């Protein structure tokens, strides 16, 4: 019985699915590494992704260009990040409250604009999503080719961004300054590093990543927009950042782990494994929680995490 289930085809399908499912978690998580490293906990990732999804979808629907859709997602993600930056840096609001409020606002805004633009239709408007891009030669390798090299372009780019993000944060002065304002804003300030400026940058970059991930959901992964299209992936991304101890490579493993658990539970259910489906559905979240608990013990939080900075405070 078991040998019937665990065939090569099963694993190929499972792992390819894992990579697809990891992408919309990996992208916002990478963005949040900048934000959290700068000492800001931005819980509005979920909302930012929803905004990115509706912006990307509408832009693609009317322009016919998928890249314009990705751009629109990123631009709107940027603006939504800016809103969080104003609240948390300039106004020094409580970051948790600001993040939660922005999520509620985003859910309302996204549906409001979707309805204004598209009205109520019995069948949803659709776009032609990003096509699968077979990497020449590599995609023809049996097993490996199907798992790694038969995805759409955004999936590849998301994994490329792991290295890019790591490089920017660890090897550039810009990255160093972002880490400095998260670790010790007062010291950074005394060295002439504009704390507000770098925190603004870090939040806005997080917004751009989240907006791109949102657009990926509506025009890369699916071909429609629905109000709950993000389905909690933004929150998982925030958790993955902490699980990853703020390191891009580990964030990739975190996203893949969640993707694998989701892909696995869907397939085990389909094959009629005799476990209640409610328990199977818990699997990805249970694994995330366990991973979080184990990893966050060792997590080295930025010293100024969630603490607003003001020169006046002593």
């Amino acid at each position, binding site marked *: 019985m078991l040998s019937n289930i665990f065939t090569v085809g099963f694993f190929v399908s499972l792992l390819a699915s894992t990579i697809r499912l990891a992408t919309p978690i990996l992208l916002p998580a990478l963005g949040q590494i900048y934000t959290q490293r700068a000492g800001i906990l931005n819980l509005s990732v979920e909302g930012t992704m929803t905004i990115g999804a509706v912006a990307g979808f509408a832009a693609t629907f009317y322009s016919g260009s998928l890249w314009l859709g990705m751009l629109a997602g990123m631009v709107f993600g940027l603006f939504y990040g800016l809103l969080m930056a104003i609240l948390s840096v300039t106004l020094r609001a409580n970051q948790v409250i600001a993040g939660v409020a922005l999520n*509620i*606002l985003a859910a309302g805004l996204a549906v409001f604009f979707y309805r204004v633009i598209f009205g109520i239709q019995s*069948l*949803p408007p659709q776009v032609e999503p990003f096509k699968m891009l077979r990497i020449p030669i590599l995609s023809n390798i049996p097993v490996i080719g199907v798992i790694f090299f038969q995805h759409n372009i955004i999936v590849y780019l998301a994994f490329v961004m792991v290295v890019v993000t790591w490089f920017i944060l660890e090897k550039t002065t810009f990255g160093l300054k972002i880490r400095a304002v998260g670790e010790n804003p007062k010291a950074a300030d005394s060295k002439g590093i504009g704390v507000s400026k770098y925190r603004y940058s870090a939040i806005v970059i997080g917004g751009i990543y989240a907006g791109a991930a949102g657009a990926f959901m509506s025009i890369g*992964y699916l*071909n429609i927009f629905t109000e709950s299209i993000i389905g909690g992936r933004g929150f998982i991304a925030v958790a993955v950042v902490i699980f990853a101890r703020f390191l891009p490579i580990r964030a990739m493993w975190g996203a893949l782990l969640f993707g694998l658990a989701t892909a696995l539970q869907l397939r085990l259910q389909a094959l009629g494994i005799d476990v209640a489906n409610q328990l199977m*559905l818990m699997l990805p979240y249970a694994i995330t929680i366990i991973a979080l608990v184990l990893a966050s013990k060792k997590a080295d939080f930025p010293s100024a995490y969630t603490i607003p900075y003001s020169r006046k405070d002593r």
Partner: protein
Amino acid sequence: MKKKILLVLMIVVIALSFTVACSSDNSDKSSDKLKVALILPGKKDDLSFNQSMYEGMMAYVDAHPDKIDLKVTENVYEVSSIEPALLDFADQGYDVIIGHGFQFMEPLVKVAEQYPDTKFLLGTGYKFTKNSAIYDVSLQDGGYQMGVIAALATQTNKIGVIGGADVSEIYRGHEGYKLGAKSVNPNIEIQEVYTGDWTDTAGAKEAAVGMYDSGVDVIWHSGDGIGLGVVQAAKEKDKYVLGNVADQLQLAPDNVLSGVVYQWQAVLENIFNDIESGKFMNLTDDERFYWITAENGGEIYAKINDPKGWLTADDLSKIEASWNDLKTGKIDFSVIEEPTT
């Protein structure tokens, strides 16, 4: 610090105002019409459960413009906000109040007892009072028909079904599907997945991709919010999919084989006739359940669209025959047990 708290509060209020702004007002002020309030747990364009009722109700209003004065409220999802909403409408003197969803059951029964002259309708459930009734979908009918179609169409002898959560009508639909498929071929392999909710479009798509990868070539989905993901998977893998709630042919003309289509108008007509004639207050217990079924035309199946040519003329006549059996109530569904919840 006060300023900031104030600002955050303002944002929350603005955010909430967007949600509230989404409730629409279709009422006008003539008094001889029946004042009806339709309370939806979700949005009227959710492509699913809410939208089907919204459209059914709108179709009924359009057909009887001089009878009904309709007010639609959306997004009353939390149980804590249901009772105030019901009380509010009852207080304003609405004649008929519709709570479209299982979670309305307890508060609706409670409020109905306090307002004995107001009529209440509950969308799926089992509790009622003297002045309330229940409308529901007998999804085993549609599910059975989909099972028959899938089993006849499949080339690999593997079919699938994907649903939201295994509750009430969805469970009955899935069981009906299995029954229908096995009536054609007792040895058929049926894969089944519940995604846990009706909104995880991406999860449903991934489940469908997994099924298609393992050799399944026809899938029925029983909740069309998630179903959109299944349709897209069918398109990508170029396999067949069967829809639910609305005819989804236009979404993927090469891949949508057929589907169950809900026609709530079929029972709304009866319900409002009973209300008008005064019979509503004297219904027997059984009569308080208005089912849309294959029999009363509340469920139909979308015209077969078979560009791959998997169905023979013989298969098509079998499909028609099974529908006739369903319409005349010849199929025995007593083997389906209610889920123990």
